[in-house]
Structures are given as structure tokens and as C-alpha cells.
């Protein structure tokens, strides 16, 4: 089976703090991979490293057959890595539809002269962009929001729009950073169903970072556990992870430190 994403000994430090410490793992194409870990364990940093927002201090990252370790940020997106953010990052001056259209930058360079003179070729491109974006909104079931502004949405709707923006260009790898954070149980179920369809129907390799452990356990075939920047479990089945005493210890240790408990297999993040 081909690997969609391969990390080899990836490390990154911020002012002496090792946020990722020699992380190696492989995600096969088509997999729905979960990444869990206590707060501050480096999950978001891992996604930032993959989408090349941060340069790595050491190690290598491969996307299918390409070594993307030193590629510019936008080139990685154009080669099919799209993502969402822990803190939703929509453009509020744009409507929902226009925000989704932004995701299509990953598939094309903007023809500036064509745009300036409004050539028929450019207008066709723009019509296609509108159609594809509408289709994506329909796929997710939020086409009725198309003309709303980014800041007129509920938190859950914003997350769905962000997912729409990330999949409109049909990425090869989708990185989701806590898509269920702060949502009600009903909404979490909707997100779960959506992620499953993106992975199943669209065939997108998904890497799901999530604190809502029920969601990860029920969705993902394989789970990686990150603790203090190190991969405690490179790739385990949900039951293996749930029963691993080291994982329990990592979560319980954090819970003890914070004075309340939530561990693998039982808790939801508030």
C-alpha cells in the first residue's frame, strides 16, 4: 500500500522547547488516521509542520512520492494538502460561497490579465469555481448558507464552511484540527458522518486531531498518540490505544495536574 504521508525523525523546537521530538510515522493512502494527545502535546504543531507553516528543525516529510520538507507553504497546498484550524479562520469580508471559492486557489494560478480584462476564458473559470463551490456546499448540506457573511454564522456552521473550503479542491490529504471542539453532541455526530463520507466517498486521506475521544475511537481505523512531542503510539487500533497503560497514564497525569479527569474512552472535551 502506498503511503500518503511519511514523517521521518521530524523535530521542531521553539526557543529551546522541543515541541516535536523525533516523530516518525506513516499514513497509508486512503486511511482515516486519528491523532490524540493531552493539551500542549504538539498535535497542532504536527499539522503545522505537515502543511509547512513551520520549517522543521530536523527530519523529512514525504507526500506520496515527493519530499516536501523544504517546499514553500503554498506549493504543499497545491499538491493536495488542505486543512482546517483549531481556531476557525474564515475571511469575514467574504460570503460563505466566496470563502469556499478561496479553496480553489490550490488548483489554479490566477490569470491576472484575463481577470483585469474580464476575458471569456476567465469568466468560464469563475463560473466553474462557483459551480464547484456550490456542489461542495451541497455535499456538506449547507448550501442555504451560501450568501451569508463569515461572521454571521454559528460556531458549528463556521467549522463546516472551513471543511468545505478545505475539500473543494479535492485534496489528497485533509488535516482536521479539532473539528468537533465546542460543539454539541448532535453536531459532533454530524461532523463524524461528514468526515466518514469525505474519507469514504471522496477517497481523501484524513488526519484527524481531536480531543473528543469518542469521536476518534468510533471513526478512525488507526490512531497515533502524541505525548510531550513524542509519538507514544505510532499507529494502534482504537482498542489497543484504549488499553495501553502508558496512554492512560499520560492522560491521567494531565488530568491529575489540572485537578479533573478525562481519559481515553470516556471523556469529552468541554
Amino acid at each position: 500500500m502506498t503511503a500518503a504521508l511519511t514523517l521521518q525523525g521530524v523535530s521542531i523546537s521553539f526557543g529551546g522547547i522541543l515541541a516535536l521530538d523525533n516523530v516518525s510515522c506513516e499514513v497509508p493512502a486512503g486511511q482515516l488516521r486519528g491523532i490524540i494527545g493531552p493539551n500542549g502535546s504538539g498535535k497542532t504543531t504536527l499539522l503545522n509542520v505537515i502543511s509547512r507553516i513551520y520549517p522543521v528543525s530536523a527530519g523529512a516529510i514525504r507526500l506520496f512520492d515527493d519530499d516536501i520538507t523544504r517546499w514553500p507553504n503554498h506549493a504543499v497546498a497545491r499538491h493536495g494538502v488542505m486543512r482546517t484550524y483549531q481556531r476557525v479562520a474564515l475571511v469575514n469580508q467574504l460570503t460563505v460561497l466566496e470563502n469556499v471559492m478561496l479553496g480553489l486557489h490550490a488548483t489554479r494560478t490566477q490569470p491576472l490579465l484575463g481577470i483585469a480584462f474580464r476575458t471569456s476564458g476567465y469568466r468560464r473559470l469563475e463560473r466553474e469555481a462557483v459551480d464547484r463551490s456550490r456542489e461542495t456546499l451541497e455535499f456538506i448540506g449547507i448550501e442555504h448558507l451560501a450568501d451569508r457573511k463569515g461572521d454571521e454564522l454559528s460556531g458549528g456552521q463556521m467549522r463546516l464552511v472551513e471543511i468545505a473550503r478545505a475539500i473543494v479542491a479535492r485534496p489528497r490529504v485533509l488535516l482536521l484540527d479539532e473539528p468537533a471542539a465546542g460543539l454539541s453532541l448532535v453536531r459532533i455526530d454530524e461532523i463524524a458522518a461528514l468526515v466518514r463520507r469525505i474519507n469514504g466517498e471522496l477517497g481523501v486521506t484524513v488526519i484527524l486531531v481531536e480531543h473528543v475521544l469518542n469521536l476518534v475511537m468510533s471513526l478512525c481505523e488507526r490512531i497515533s498518540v502524541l505525548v510531550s512531542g513524542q509519538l507514544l503510539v505510532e499507529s494502534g487500533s482504537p482498542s489497543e490505544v484504549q488499553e495501553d497503560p502508558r496512554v492512560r497514564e499520560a492522560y491521567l497525569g494531565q488530568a491529575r495536574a489540572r485537578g479533573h479527569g478525562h481519559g481515553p474512552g470516556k471523556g469529552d472535551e468541554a
Partner: protein
Amino acid sequence: MTLDRPQRILRLAAVAGLAVLVVAPWMVSLYKVHVLNVLIINIIMAISLNLIMGYSGQFAKANVAFMGLGAYTMGLLVTRADWSFWIAWPTGALLAAAVGTLVALPALRLRGLYLAIITISFVLIVHWTFLHARFLTGGASGFSVPHPNYGGLPIPNTQATYYLSLLTLLGAIWMVRNLVASGFGRSLLCLAEQELVAPALGINVYATKIAVFALSGLLAGFAGGLHAVTLQFIDPQNFWLLQLVIQLCMVALGGVASLLGSVLGASIMTLLIEVLRAFKGLWEFAIGAILLVTIVFFPRGIAGLIEHFFPTLRERRHRP
């Protein structure tokens, strides 16, 4: 597409405004034609500045220097090298665009206050050069520029230059309207609001910034050449910090990221300065007061107010 009532009224107002501008040179005094010509040039400058400050959210304030480069290049080529205005003018604009791409380089790394300081320093340096390269520029006393050669055009030069400015403005509005309602325009807004997200969407931030600085420089360069032939004189004081503040005021008053805002802001400011000119020292005060009130009470300017009350007049970000 069917238009609703506010849209029809806006369209009507635009047509009426254009009609007034077209017939005005034959109805009013030559001095007023001159004022209207300056107003038109100010609108081009406000659009040029709005592209960078409003749409792209970059705190770069070098546009008045781009304008000066366009004016001086055109003027020197015409007076010293005997070039035709029709070649010298676009050459000046292209040079301003090229310098714009150079100014974009610090904007690739710096943001906010630092970018503002660097670009204001650039304005100071360019102004200093105009002042001190006396053998070329005539220093503080400036130099005269002849009318462009309008060939057999059967109207006086003042009116001809006025119509040239008007045509340039219409071309600029058409083109910028196309650009801001496109993937390019949307990526500018993304830069302004979510600069870190833009590259993760596949937007080449470097190329986008360089393109918008070049475009803004080009518009300012054309405006500079027009300004020189409108005044028939090039004076370094016209490309100084005071003009920069006036242009910032036009953008802020009219509204960021809005073409309609740039048109209204520049028009109101130009007329206001003209009216207050009679009262010595008053208009500087008025500008300060307007800037203050706008930023505190109407951060999105007049265009923001219009959009608030008539949401369908929101500037379009896609027009398939």
C-alpha cells in the same frame, strides 16, 4: 440580473455623476475644471492606496512616492529628452510599478508598524532626491511641464487633459472592479484578514503582494503624470507627507476595501479642501478632525455605512 431599488438608485447616481463630469468643462470656469481634474486624479490615488491598505491590509504608505516618480519621470523625459508625452507618461507609470515591486520586498517580511515606517522612510528618501538632485529636477523650485500634444483635437488643452484624466479614471475603475471581484481580489482580502491561512490555501503570498504593489504603483504613476500636466508644473511638495495624510484620509473616510468608498472619499475631501482653502489653516484642522471621527465612529467609512443600510450595495467579490 435584476437590480433591486438601492442598486438601481446607485446605478442612476453613477450615470448622473458621470454625465456631470462629462459636460462640466463646458459649463464652469477654467479654475473649476482644474479643481475637478485634481479631484479625478485624487480618486485614482485613493483607489491605488486602497488596493494596498484596504483590500490587502498592508500598512504600506509609499503611494505618494510612486506618484512623484511617475510625475518626475514623465516630466524629465518630456522636458530634457524631448520625448512625446504619450511615450513618457506610460514609461513613468511603468517605472513607478517597477519601484512598487521593489517596495513590495520588505512587505514580504514586515507587517504593521515596521512596514509603515519603512515605506514612510521611502517617501522621505524619494522626496529628498527630488529636492536635492537640482541639476535634474530644479530642486525645491520645481519645473514647468508643457501640455501634451493633442494633435488636431478641436478642444482647448485644459479640457483635453481633463478628459484624458476622466478616461484614465474610468479605465482604472473598470479594471480594478474586475480585479477585486475575482480570485485575485479574494486572495487580497484573505491576506488582509488571515495572512497565515492564505498560503495553506495555495495562495502564493509573495506573488500576490508583488502583483498588488505593482498594480498600485502603476495607477499612482499614471496619476502622477496626469497631475504634472494638469498643473503644468512639478513641485516636490506635491509628493510629501501632507499629501500622504490627505490620501489616507480619503481612503479612511470613504471606506477600506471599497471602490465606491474611494470615489466618495476622494471627492468629498477634494471639495472640502477647496472650500476651506479660503480660511487659512482651517483645512488641516478639518482633515485631522475628519480622520479622527471616522476612525472612532465609522471604522468602515461611508461605504461601510452604505452597506450597513443597503446590504445589496455591498461590493461584489465574484461576478461570474
